[in-house]
C-alpha cells in the first residue's frame, strides 16, 4: 500500500498550496498518474479519501488523469504507446531496449479552492 504514502504527500502539498494562496478549503484536486508510475489509481483514490477527513481538503474530490505509456525503441527507433501498466518489448521489432517517454508521471496539476 505505498499509495498511502503518495496520497499523504499529495494531501500535504494540496493543503500547503491552498493556505499559502490565502484560501480556506479545497474543492477539487487534479493529478496526472502515469500507468507505469507504480501507483494504482483505485488505491490512490481510496487512500486520499481516507486521509482527507478532518482537514481543509475534507470535502475535496480527487480527479485522476491516467497517462498511457509512450516509449521509443532503442533499436528500431519507432515510437509506440500502450494502455498496459508495463512494457516488456517493442511491438515492432521485439527489442527489450527502449526509452520510456511518458507514463511515469506522479504529478499534481491543479487545485480548486474556496
Amino acid at each position, binding site marked *: 500500500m505505498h499509495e498511502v504514502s503518495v496520497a499523504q504527500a499529495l494531501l500535504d502539498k494540496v493543503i500547503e498550496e491552498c493556505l499559502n494562496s490565502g484560501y480556506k478549503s479545497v474543492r477539487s484536486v487534479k493529478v496526472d498518474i502515469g500507468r507505469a508510475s507504480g501507483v494504482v489509481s483505485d488505491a490512490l483514490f481510496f487512500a486520499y479519501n481516507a486521509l482527507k477527513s478532518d482537514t481543509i481538503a475534507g470535502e475535496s474530490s480527487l480527479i485522476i488523469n491516467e497517462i498511457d505509456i509512450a516509449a521509443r525503441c532503442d533499436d528500431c527507433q519507432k515510437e509506440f504507446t500502450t494502455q498496459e501498466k*508495463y512494457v516488456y518489448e517493442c511491438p515492432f521489432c521485439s527489442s527489450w531496449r527502449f526509452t520510456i517517454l511518458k507514463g511515469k508521471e506522479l504529478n499534481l496539476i*491543479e487545485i480548486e479552492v474556496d
Partner: protein
Amino acid sequence: MKIQVVSKILDANERIAVENKEAFDRHHVFVINLMSSPGAGKTTLLEKTISQLKDSISIAVIEGDIAGVDDAMRIEALGIPVVQINTGGYCHLDAGMIRDAFNEFDLTKTDLIFIENVGNLVCPAEFYMGEDIKAMILSITEGHDKPLKYPTMFQNSSVILINKIDLKPHLDVDIDKIKTDIKKLNPSAVIFEVSCKTGEGLQGWIDWLKTASTSKRL
C-alpha cells in the same frame, strides 16, 4: 478559484534524498539500498559480508522492518553501528526515515552503509533515498518467474544476488532462465550466484563491494 500547481507529488521525498546523497558524498560514504522479498536472505547476507569486511572497511547498517528488532540485534552482535527503523505498517523506507537514521552514525568514520529495506518486491524500488546503488536478492526458492512478474525492482537494481543456490538439487527452478530474464530487463546488471549458508560465490560479491566502496573514498 483554480490554482495551477504542476509539481511532482513526491518532490518532498526527492528533496530529502538529494540532501542525504550530498551528505554521503561529502563524507565519501558508499551507500547500498538492499531489497528483496521477505526471507530471501538480506540479513544473513549482511552478517556474512560484514564478518568478512569489518576489519578492513568501517560499516554501518540501517535496518527497516514493519516491526521488531531481531535484525538489528543480529547486526549489533557483530559489533558495528546499527539503527532499527520500524515503519509500523509502511511497506518501504523513505528518504526522511534514512535522514533520521544516519544522523545516529559518525559519517566521518564510516565507509559503507547498508540500508536493509522492508522485505517487499514492489514498493521499495519506487522510493529514492539518496543511496549510491540499489542491490537486490532473489532466492531460488521464490521461483524463476519472479524477474518478469516484478520487473521494476530487477530493472532498478545495479547488483542482483541469486541466493540459496545450495538448494538447487531439491528444487525445480531454472537458474539460467532467471539470469536470461534479468539480462533482458537490465543488461548492465551485475549478477552473483551465491549461497549465504555455505559461502559459495560470496567472494565475488565481497570483491565487488571492496572495489565500489574504495573507489568512492579516492
